[in-house]
């Protein structure tokens, strides 16, 4: 059913609506009004054309209605709303990446202690030594000594500002033993908010009974001394 008057009316009203995303809804609402009115007139016995004419006459001046509607559909507000909607979505995606990924990694990364071959372990100790460098908390958790002379230090570190990110932890300090030997560590760390690390020292002295980790850099200092189990077989 062609209704040119209705179409012309709607088109004119919409021409005053500056915010494009509201046009469709306004059109739907006004159109359904007109169509129902036409139906009512036709029920009263008018033919389509007459009914359409009467209905359009009843509804009023397209320009007036259009301009009034435009006031209620402020384009600036509309655009700001649209744009901020988009930004919210973007930021949520961004934050999922920046917050979600590290959290995900943190909770799903397994402890590196599981990577050690169980049969090679001479002894294993749980320790609980905690030190702090600025906002970084370093927590030494385990020592594993292997039959190939490798001593593994397990520790985790995190930032007290949980969201804090920054340079990754460079060194935990100088590693020595009570006999005066200095060791170089091979290190491996997981990523995430709470980082799990392993430092492996090759050929660790079997006679040493204390492991010493001392940090002294840029006026920050700590010293951790860990008593080791000296293997009975080796004495």
């Amino acid at each position, binding site marked *: 059913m062609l209704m040119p008057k209705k179409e012309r009316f709607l088109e004119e009203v919409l021409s005053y609506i500056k915010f494009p995303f509201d046009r469709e809804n306004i059109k739907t609402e006004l159109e359904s009004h007109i169509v129902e009115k036409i139906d009512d007139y036709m029920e009263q016995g008018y033919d389509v054309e007459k009914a359409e004419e009467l209905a359009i006459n009843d509804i009023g001046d397209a320009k007036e209605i259009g301009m009034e509607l435009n006031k209620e559909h*402020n384009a600036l*507000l*509309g655009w*700001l*709303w649209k744009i*901020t*909607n988009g*930004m*919210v979505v973007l*930021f*949520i995606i*961004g*934050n999922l990446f*920046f*917050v979600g990924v*590290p959290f995900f990694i943190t909770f799903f990364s397994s402890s590196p202690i599981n990577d050690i071959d169980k049969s090679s372990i001479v002894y294993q100790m749980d320790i609980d030594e905690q030190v702090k*460098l*600025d*906002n*970084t908390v370093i927590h030494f958790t385990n020592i594993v000594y292997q039959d190939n002379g490798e001593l593994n230090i397990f520790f985790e570190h995190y*930032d007290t*500002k949980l*969201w*804090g*990110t*920054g*340079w990754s932890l*460079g060194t935990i300090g100088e590693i020595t033993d009570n006999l005066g030997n200095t060791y170089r560590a091979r290190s491996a760390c997981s990523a995430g908010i709470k980082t799990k690390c392993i430092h492996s020292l090759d050929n660790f002295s079997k006679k040493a009974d204390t492991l010493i980790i001392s940090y002294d*850099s*840029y*006026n*920050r200092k700590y010293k951790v001394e860990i008593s080791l189990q000296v293997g009975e077989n080796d004495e």
Partner: protein
Amino acid sequence: MSRGKKLLRNMIVLGLLLYVFLNRSSLYLNPLSAHEDSERSIHYGPSEVVHIENFEGGKYVLGKYDKWVSCNMVSKVFFFLWGFGSDPTGFENDQTKAVDYTWAAINHNFKLYGIINDDRVKKIEITLGNGKVLIQTDFYDDLFLFTWRDTLDEDWNFKNIRGYDANNNIIFEEEY
């Protein structure tokens, strides 16, 4: 909810999301905040900032911390945000030298910075590989900073540094 309220809600949500983003992404609205967090996170400082200098891609932050002298770099990200750059920690000042300094080149950006330990030094002059001479007489407290960029066709490496007194006598000289 009316559109005005939705907009307000969006702004509040955006503010919160931005806060989280800035905290998690190690990006900052302010270059000095980036500098401070950069130092703290690498367990250095906080240094006393004596001079800030722009360069293509960011800012140099010249500062002193106890016996160290540093020239941290913070980089500009997305036009208005600031992130960690490089080289946040400083060198240890050797007070026995009239002038102590260090230099570095990162992505065509050269910097030479240092400290004047001998009060008589009133002018620092450096010579580059291509013969160019840079001079500085106004210091930042007792610190100085030279910055330059290189081009591929010339040798822009640092070659020589001299410290002069008020009468143009050489007090300090070192070749690289």
